[in-house]
């Protein structure tokens, strides 16, 4: 950065402008097509978002139906706490209970749907090399992080997921009461026969999850440690996001009756609504 005095507006402006063009790992990239690490086969013109979310940080995105979002756990300690909303009516949102109950399955993997409370598909898990996810324990709170790490606020060194999701929600005019139970990607739990939850950690560096938005979505994502992570230190690492334009499901490739009905509901809603 060039030296410039900041004791008058001209100098302050020069000082500010001299900071442009800095590139760090944890930032959004504009235009997205200028970013690296696009998956093979993604055309530059379809690239719609590129961002790396740092440890203990968050992002909030509005995405069109059909958008494919690929998340990558770069170093093995990312943990994506996700809240999803239908952007056209935000009281329709991720329903974790319906997601596991309707699909008769607790452990998310490729082919699973993230369902709303209206019997519709918000997103499809297209691909998943992690298979270390969690639908039970949710995200962290300020209270627990203060007890465990000494701080849980967004401005401290160990932000809680709920604090960050509250800020992310506010970027779309949403309030704490709008935040539903979340799904957690890249850090898993296992349910013992006794009902006990065992933390299974991550699949290691480089794991990816690819999601497709089946409706226009608001995606809130906090990258903070899993609440059952036993490590005494607040352990978190960057999460890479690449998103490109695509088309939502036609329903033709559903392999369960529940998924087929969920896609049919979603497609009919979209057609009726003119999406």
């Amino acid at each position, binding site marked *: 950065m060039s030296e410039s005095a900041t004791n008058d507006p001209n100098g302050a402006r020069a000082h500010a402008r001299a900071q442009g063009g800095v590139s760090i790992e944890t930032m959004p990239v504009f235009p997205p097509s200028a970013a690296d690490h696009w998956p093979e086969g993604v055309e530059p013109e379809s690239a719609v978002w590129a961002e790396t979310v740092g440890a203990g940080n968050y992002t909030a995105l509005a995405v069109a139906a059909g958008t494919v979002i690929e998340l990558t756990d770069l170093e093995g300690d990312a943990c994506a706490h996700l809240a999803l909303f239908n952007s056209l009516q935000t*009281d329709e949102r991720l*329903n*974790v*209970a*319906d997601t*596991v*109950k*309707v699909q*008769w*399955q*607790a*452990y998310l993997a490729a082919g699973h749907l993230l*369902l709303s*409370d*209206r*019997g*519709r598909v918000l997103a499809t898990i297209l691909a998943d090399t992690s298979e270390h996810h969690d*639908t*039970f*324990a*949710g*995200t962290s*709170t*300020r*209270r*627990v992080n203060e007890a465990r790490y000494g701080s849980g606020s967004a401005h401290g060194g160990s932000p809680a997921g*709920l604090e960050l999701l509250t800020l992310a929600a506010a970027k779309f005019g949403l*309030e*704490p*009461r*709008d*935040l*539903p*139970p*979340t799904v957690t990607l890249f850090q898993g739990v296992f*349910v013992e*026969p*006794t*009902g*006990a*939850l065992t933390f299974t950690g991550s699949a290691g560096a480089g794991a990816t999850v690819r999601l497709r938005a089946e409706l226009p979505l608001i995606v809130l994502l906090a990258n903070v440690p899993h*609440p*059952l992570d036993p490590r005494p230190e607040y352990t978190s690492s960057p999460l890479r996001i690449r998103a490109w334009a695509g088309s939502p499901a036609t329903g033709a490739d559903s392999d369960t009756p*529940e998924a087929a*009905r*969920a896609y049919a*509901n979603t497609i009919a809603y979209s057609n009726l609504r003119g999406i």
Partner: protein
Amino acid sequence: MSLTATATVVSDDTVERRGPWSKLLTAGQSLTIVDLHGNQAVDFLVYDAHDTAIRYSAQQTMARQGNIFLTTGSTLLANTGDALMTIVEDEVGRHDTIGGACSKESNSLRYGAHTVHEHACVENFLAEGARWGLGKRDLVSNVNFYMNVPVEPDGVLGIVDGISAPGLSLTLRADRDVIVLVSNCPQINNPCNGFDPTPVRMVVTA
């Protein structure tokens, strides 16, 4: 049901089959829920009476106790981590908080579009919640008392035959002033109510 001799009965209601119920409990009061006829799912939500943005969190509750099942000693935590109510007595042994409430919409996925016009727990929650200013945004994953939802090692889970029996009860203590919202589950397409929804009893004591 064992009410202590010194307890004062504040209210004693029978919730009709398929119907809703709600109550404001002050801190220290207790709610005893009696499964009058056995295997009747009681869908249950609880809110801080003074700030309903503070509401039951199934995920905080499970994470804190490290277990998916609720029983004696389980504290129902809010999204903030605050204690709302604690189960102080349980004659059944375990209750669900992963299965959520049935809805017209989820029924359409689980059983088919022909069930869309059947009554459902979410309808009860919406109807009863409206009396307290609570709406769709306030509905979150709930407790299902007397409902049995095991998770197999391969992740397969589902609502299976219940383990309750006629007359069994549980008691919750209010850890702060709370609003309790209940749906006496009307579901007839799975075994959570033995395919025959029946009344339950709600006794509030001080």
